[in-house]
């Protein structure tokens, strides 16, 4: 039951880089407006980064077939139920089944 120094630094660093985009617009934008181009660019960031991170998990450095086949039911559940928790649970279960079959 302890807090290691490097884990503390990791949590602190992650906390700071998360805090800044959370508070900056609320504090600053009562005086300024975000320029339109910046707003449109930021609008595409979530889809772009989620897909990039997911693709890296599955296709880099080589094609991971187990992750690819676990991703299929997770996608289906996400589209059909729109439940984040359901997607995570089905993804984990699919991975467990695939790993025990292979």
């Amino acid at each position, binding site marked *: *039951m302890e*807090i290691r120094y490097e884990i503390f630094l990791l949590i602190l660093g*992650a906390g700071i880089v998360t805090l800044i985009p959370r508070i900056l617009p*609320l504090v600053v934008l009562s005086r300024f407006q975000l320029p339109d181009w910046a707003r449109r660019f930021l609008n595409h960031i979530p889809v772009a980064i*989620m897909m990039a*991170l997911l693709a890296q998990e599955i296709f880099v450095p080589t094609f991971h077939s187990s992750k690819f086949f676990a991703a299929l039911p997770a996608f289906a559940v996400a589209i059909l139920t729109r439940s984040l928790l359901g997607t995570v649970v089905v993804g984990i279960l699919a991975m467990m089944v695939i790993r025990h079959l292979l």
Partner: protein
Amino acid sequence: MKQKITEAHLDEEGFVQGVKDCLPTVLGYLSIGFAAGVIEKTAGLSIAEIALVSLLLYAGSAQFILAGMLLTHSSISAIIFTIFFVNLRHLLMSAALAPYFRHLPPWKNMLIGSQLTDETFGVAIHHTANKTMLNERWMLGLNITAYLNWAIANVAGGFFGQWITNPESFGLDFALPAMFIGLLVLQIIHRKNWMVDLIVALSAIGLVVGSSYLFSGSGAILIATILSATIGVIIEKWK
């Protein structure tokens, strides 16, 4: 007199109403927080570290990334970098709420912003209908309820996770990719901008695979994210 009326009106939706308006989201995030706690525990974090990360970082996707990348032995700088990019989406939510808190001093806006999450944003932006400003006590009630719920769920998950010794055989290493799938699909469905979003997503796949021949893991992510978001902007302008 006018001042009094405004205050009386705001009192009706004070702290307690904020707590009540948070309740519909409590069960869903209790479960996700619990799952995050289990993953954090199996990634090697102690209960104290889980409590700390849920209180200081307080972001589901970021905590899944932190735990998932610790599990695969990524460097600390790569983890922080990835979390920064994933959480840039808060910029937009914070900007969208800013007009409703113009009446507050900067330190109160900082406090409100520091507890901004996908769920509290969703509740708050829904609550702004037909309003020009939001009551900060209502917002505080909403935020504190979500915050405590999250911390409790994480620690409970951490205790449960102690019983799991080999996370891979339970498929738990797939929790992070599954989380990305969930967030990605929910975003695309919610935005109703299918064509552009699909092109951005396909570009991101091609760009991250292509650039990973030339750059490190996080470098490839950075390039793929910036270029595919730019492609999205260009396509929208072009249509």
